[in-house]
Every structure is written in C-alpha cells, then in structure tokens.
C-alpha cells in the first residue's frame, strides 16, 4: 500500500440548519468537509422572506410604520427612524429638537439591548452559559426604559412623521439615572468573565480574520467593519438626529478577527452609555411633535436615500414617491445581508469547531437578511 492511498480521504457533506440553534434563526449551510476542514460552503437564505418591500408599496405610509419594526426585531427602532426620516425629508418637515433627542436616546438604548443579546448569545455559542444570563439581565434594564416610554417591549412603534408618539413618562428619569449608574460596573464584570478567559481567547483570537480591504469590498458596515480597522461611523461622518450636537468618536480595532468583533461591540456599549448620559443631561424642552402633520400624508413626488447606523451596520432606505399616499418604490439595504455575504469565503479551510464563532461574531439576524 503506497502512502497516497493509505491517507486518502473522502469528502462528505454536513447540513447545518435551518433549525440549528447556533445559526440564530433559519439559516442553512451545506458544508463539504474533508475530515475536520471545510472545503466548500453553500449558504441558503430566504426562509424568513416576508416581502417587506412589496408590503410597503401596498400600504399607506403610516401603515408601514409598525411593519418596519418587524424588519429587524432586536433593534426595531432604527427601521422606523429611517422610514420617518425619509418621509420627513420628502415632505420637508422640521422635527423639533426634543423629538430628535428622544429618538437618539431610544436608539442608543436599543443598541445596548441588541449588543447585550450578542454578548450573551456569542458566549453561549462557545459553550459559556453564565454570560447569556448576564446579557439578558442587563437587556432587561434597557427594555424597562423602552417599555415605559413606548408601550411595548420589542415592536415599539414609537416614531411618527415629524416627531415621536409621546413624551417621556415621569418614571423615566429616576430609572435612567439608576441605569446610567449601574451599567459600567456590569460591563466591567463582562470584561472580567470573558476578556482574558483562556478558552474564549483561544477560540476567537486569529479566527476568521478579515482585512480592511476585503471588508470594504463586501460592503461591510458597523462594528464588523470597525473591528477590521476602518474608521467609519455614520454617527460621526454623516450625523443625523442629535448626533451632530453630541459629538461621537467611534471605536476602531485593528485585527479583524472574531475577538476584535466581540470587543468592538462591548466597547460600543460603553460609548452608547456615554451618549445616553449626554442626551439625558442636555435634553431640550419643547414639543415632541411637529404641528399639523396629517395621519395620512400625501408625500410629494421625489426620491430620497436615508442611512441610519443600526447595531449591525448601516441601514439604508431608498424611497421613490410619485405623489400618492403610498410609496412607488421602497428599497431596503439591510446590513446583515451584506455582512453575511462573505460567509463562504470566511469558512473555506477552517475547522468545523470555528464555524460557530465565525458565524456568531458577525451578529447577523435572519429577518434582517431575508426581510
């Protein structure tokens, strides 16, 4: 027997998902394996397709507002902010300053809620159960604040054309004060549990490394892009809502591996916490809703492209109006889809055990991919 035939291996196929818990939803990968190495990967998406764009074109502008909450249900306020901003820009509505600040506070709270889930679920994917419980506990603090203001825990339906639905309740200020005081200590605890943990570091450092050029070519945005060393954040480069007045410096890390993508999100939670503190201190007085806005607006003809920095990346919305009470064309550019598009290239040649950290560190959410 010659050495070639003695060590001859045979490729086989492994089907991951669509019901696999670590695919964070309904995502299917057909992996061709050679022993423990991935030779080929064929991703399948579309299990959660709800034709959101067509639904928007068949509904009044206001009727799509609660639907926009359901595009990305873990950070639902960003989609409604984009929808409202698009309509406001076409109708040339001036949003009151207080409404802008309220939207900013809610967006940053929502970002913390989304990143807390990432922290918990990413650690759970790697086999650590404790961070999962901690992440959900801290998420509950932000959920309380969001629920008492908006009336729902996940599908808020808080933004309106020309402002927001309601002012803050009285119970908001003591609760947010408590949250601002408690949260940094909790983040320190997160650092103590995972940052230097030998198992966690060994499984994430130098795994799934993506260079800056490749990340840009695939249209990555958000924390994933900033972990690869690209200094770009919409909140600083193209400020919207109240971000221009607050001043914000994005977190940029250099390595672009799973560990840096995880760190980028934890550090972003800290900067979000700072932003909330600044917002609550500098909250201007005044109305929360522009005057005389119809509930059923006829939007003037024109086109607009709006970008919002959601926790997963830049959420883009292209709206083409022909002067009717419904949009003529409604195109969504969701960050998770672009972030996921590199999955085949990232998985080629890695070990089977590295698939879960690589997929988990992208922090995609499947309703956002399929929409």
């Amino acid at each position, binding site marked *: 027997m010659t050495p070639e035939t003695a060590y001859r291996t045979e490729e086989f196929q492994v089907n991951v998902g669509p019901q696999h818990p670590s695919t964070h939803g309904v995502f299917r990968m057909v992996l061709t394996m050679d022993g423990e190495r991935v030779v080929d990967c064929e991703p399948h998406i579309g299990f959660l397709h709800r034709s959101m764009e067509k639904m928007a074109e068949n*509904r*009044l502008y*206001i*009727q*799509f*507002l*609660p*639907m926009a909450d359901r595009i990305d249900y873990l950070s639902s306020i960003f989609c409604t902010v984009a929808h409202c901003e698009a309509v406001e820009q076409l109708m040339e509505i001036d949003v009151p300053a207080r409404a802008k600040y309220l939207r900013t506070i809610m967006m940053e709270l929502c970002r913390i809620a989304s990143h807390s889930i990432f922290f918990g679920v990413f650690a759970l994917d790697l086999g650590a159960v*404790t961070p999962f419980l*901690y992440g959900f*506990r801290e998420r*509950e603090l932000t959920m*309380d604040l969001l*629920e*008492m*203001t*908006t*009336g*729902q825990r996940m*599908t808020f*339906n808080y933004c309106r054309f020309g402002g927001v*639905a*309601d002012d803050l*309740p009285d*119970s908001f200020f003591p609760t947010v004060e408590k949250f601002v005081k408690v949260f940094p200590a909790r983040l320190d*605890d997160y650092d*103590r*549990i*995972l940052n*230097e*943990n*030998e198992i966690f570091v060994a499984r994430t450092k130098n795994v799934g490394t993506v260079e800056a050029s490749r990340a840009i070519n695939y249209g990555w945005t958000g924390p994933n892009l900033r972990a690869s060393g690209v200094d770009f954040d919409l909140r600083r480069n193209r400020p919207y809502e109240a971000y221009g007045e607050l001043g914000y410096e994005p977190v940029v890390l250099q390595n672009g591996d799973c560990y840096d993508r995880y760190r980028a999100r934890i550090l972003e939670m800290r900067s979000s916490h700072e932003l909330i503190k600044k917002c609550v201190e500098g909250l201007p007085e005044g109305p929360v809703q522009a005057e005389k806005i119809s*509930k*059923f607006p006829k939007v003037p003809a024109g086109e607009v492209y709006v970008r919002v920095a959601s926790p997963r990346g830049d959420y883009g919305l292209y709206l083409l109006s022909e002067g009717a009470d419904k949009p003529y064309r409604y195109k969504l550019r969701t960050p998770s889809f672009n972030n996921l598009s590199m999955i085949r290239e990232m998985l080629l040649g890695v070990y089977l055990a590295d698939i879960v950290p690589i997929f988990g560190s992208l922090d995609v959410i499947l309703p956002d991919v399929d929409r």
Partner: protein
Amino acid sequence: MNVFRALGRVIKGTWWLFVGMVTTTKHMLRRSITIQYPRQRFEQWPRFRGRLAMVPDEEGGHKCTACAQCLRICPAACITLERHKEEGVKGFLVDAYVVDLGLCIYCGLCVEVCNFGALEMIPEYEISAYDKADFIYDIPKLLARQLEPEFKR
C-alpha cells in the same frame, strides 16, 4: 524556555479563571431578579399596550360614531364595522364592531386616530385561547375587562 512560557500561560489562565469565578460568585449572592410567573406577576407600566378595548361611557355603552378612521389606518385590517343611516339622525349608527385579535399586531394606531376616545389599549395580556373563534371580539366583549388602564392618551 518553552517550558517557562507554557507554565506562564497555565498560571495566567488559572488566574483569569479564578477572577471569573469570583465575579460569578459575587453575582450569585445578589438578590434574584427572576419571578415565578403564574404565581407572581409583573406590574405593567401604565403605557403598556395590551389588548384592544372600548371605552365605556356613563351608561356603559360605547362611544363609537362609526366614522371608520380605525378601519382606514389598521395595518392588519383586523377591524370590521357594519353601519347604517337612519332618517333624522346625524351620522351613522353602529350595527356591529368586531375586532379579530388573532390578526391584531398591537400597534395602537387605531387608538391614536380615534377622535372620540372610543378605543384604548388595556394592560390585559393573557388572552390566549384554544379556539380561533375566541379571538373575535364584538362590542360586549370589547367593553368588558378585568384590569383598568391607568394611562390615557
């Protein structure tokens, strides 16, 4: 040299595992934040949007004037209204007002658009049922409630 480096890694790894254990133990000694659901319950925030209900007037009837604004704004089209005109009476008279809570998405837009304050979202959230027919709420069912809402828009 390699032996020392390996030994250093072992010591460092053990130290950080120990730091993690101390953190976990500290959290274990804290007061529990979970509640035992069927026996204990959350107190809902005043604005919480539970199921849709009709606001009763002084005589216990409804305030609906059949203007159908809620039908126009509902994104899920879960409201049906039957109305007729009578001579000598201004406006419409309501024959039937039926909400299918199985279709409702709890957005609260109908409450916002109502000019007569006839609708509200009450903090009643345990409305699951075994039969689809139980989700169809007509006027008497929409007027009846177990909890009183605290927040009025």
